[in-house]
């Protein structure tokens, strides 16, 4: 590989590291965007099946070209800027919504050593970048100069700030037991322990000892991405579509892409933090990227399943769940895990 790249590196000279990083970024984002497009297709098919409908089945074989048709349709639509909107911010809003959900992929490891930026503080970086996501929604809601959009943005702010706290505490438990902020180390630390030696690795992953945190993280993840049943932000029956109400064409599509990219990000993070990443669930099968992909796909399916099953929470109930249920549970569990680690019963030594 190195020898093959040598002439190319010489051609670019001192700009080669920049070019090579850009190539790697494209190598991550291009498949991601394809996944996002087909996630919309999967969502419609899965929900269709759960509601005994067919879902998209006209464009192409089995409706497989539907996402492309949708993208083309949105591309050719006009982007309307409402009069009285704060124009600069109105354009920046959707871009700010999408950018963090793509930037976070820089530290996501796909396999042992297969990561764009293998930094020490990977988990902190993810937390920081995810906390930026909210700005796209707020700015869009304010800049649209519309009451519905504004109310949607206010809801989004309160909801995302609340659930970030419990998500953060869940992550604290994970980094307590793995003693590292590096995502690769977090995965490898899950591949040790008594059950791993017995060939039953899936029992030594973080989800079992940290089961309440796993549940809290997954549910908070659904709330963070504003997916049903926590989608009071768009709540079409109450605030039409929240912050997106004034957007059309590609500007709207960016919000859409951001939502699905976030879903995939939360799923892959859940697989990395709690489900052992690329580690194989049983001893006799080799580790590899396919395991990470399978786990992520399974969690994404849960996202769709939940959406098709539960009705939307009312807003005050969403807030209650975040502040009065999740935060006490996580606070207690952080202490429990810390004491557990210090006690002779610790399983992480």
């Amino acid at each position, binding site marked *: 590989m190195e020898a093959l790249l040598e002439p190319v590196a010489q051609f670019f000279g001192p700009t080669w590291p920049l070019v090579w990083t850009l190539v790697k970024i494209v190598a991550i984002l291009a498949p991601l965007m394809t996944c996002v497009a087909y996630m919309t297709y999967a969502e419609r098919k899965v929900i269709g099946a759960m509601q005994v409908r067919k879902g998209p089945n006209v464009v192409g074989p089995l409706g497989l070209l539907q996402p492309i048709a949708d993208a083309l349709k949105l591309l050719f639509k006009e982007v309307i800027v409402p009069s009285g909107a*704060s124009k600069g*911010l109105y354009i920046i809003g959707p871009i700010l919504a999408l950018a963090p959900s793509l930037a976070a992929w820089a530290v996501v490891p796909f396999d042992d050593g297969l990561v764009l930026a293998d*930094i*020490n*503080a990977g988990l*902190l*970086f993810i*937390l*920081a970048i995810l*906390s*930026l996501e*909210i*700005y796209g929604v*707020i*700015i869009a809601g*304010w800049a649209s100069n519309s009451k519905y959009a*504004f109310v949607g*943005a*206010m809801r989004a*702010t*309160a909801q995302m*700030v609340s659930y*970030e706290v419990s998500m953060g505490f869940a992550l604290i438990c994970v980094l307590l037991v793995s003693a590292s*902020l590096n995502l690769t180390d977090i995965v490898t630390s899950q591949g040790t322990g008594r059950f791993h030696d017995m060939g039953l690795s899936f029992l030594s992953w973080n989800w079992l000892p940290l089961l309440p945190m796993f549940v809290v993280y997954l549910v908070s993840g659904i709330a963070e991405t504003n997916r049903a049943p926590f989608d009071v932000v768009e709540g079409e029956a109450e605030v039409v579509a929240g912050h997106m109400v004034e957007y059309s064409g590609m500007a709207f599509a960016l919000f859409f892409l951001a939502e699905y990219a976030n879903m995939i990000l939360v799923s892959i993070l859940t697989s990395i933090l709690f489900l052992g990443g690329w580690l194989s669930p049983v001893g006799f099968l080799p580790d590899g990227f396919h395991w990470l992909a399978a786990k992520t796909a399974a969690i994404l399916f849960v996202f769709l399943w939940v959406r098709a099953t539960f009705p939307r929470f*009312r807003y*005050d*109930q969403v*807030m*209650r769940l975040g502040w*009065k249920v999740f935060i006490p549970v996580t606070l207690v569990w952080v202490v429990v895990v810390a004491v557990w680690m210090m006690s002779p019963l610790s399983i992480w030594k």
Partner: protein
Amino acid sequence: MEFKTFVFYLFAAILVFAALRVITARNPVHAALHLVLAFFTAGGIWLLLQAEFLAIVLVMTYVGAVMVLFLFVVMMLDINLDRLREGFWGYLPVGALIGILLVVEMAIVLGGRYFGLDAMPTPAAAAEGYSNTRELGMVLYTEYVYPFELASLVLLVAMVAAVTLTLRKRKGVKYIDPADQVAVKRDGRVELVSMPAEKE
């Protein structure tokens, strides 16, 4: 010019511009958003100093939480800028005095012989496997554990005080407790009565 130097000057320029816009922007929301940009860029500059933990925590708390709530409030206020500017000339002497004091203080500190390249040599390059976060945690929980806990206590007192100041129980409001509503079971609401069919 080294690439790092270039990045530093780029970030510094953005930081100065954003900071200036915070105080010159006419629209308070634009000012708050420029403050967000300033925090973010400052985080970037700290990263150049290899203080990744502090940089990321700055972004997480100030950008991710504090400024969000700030924007939340600023967006809902109806701020009349002309009324805010009414007393400008009256306050100018006081403001200018404080400004000059700040400049003098900074000049004393930065120009003094205890601060500077010769007084503080460049720290040695970090060893392999050095983790800023781990080092900081080690120091905070061993050497500085009492000041650290004291600081957290001060914050807790402030938090409790803020809550008690704004807490008020109003009587006669039709407030519904979501916890009660969620806990409702079918048996609490529906009673099935078995009745024999009646003939006329």
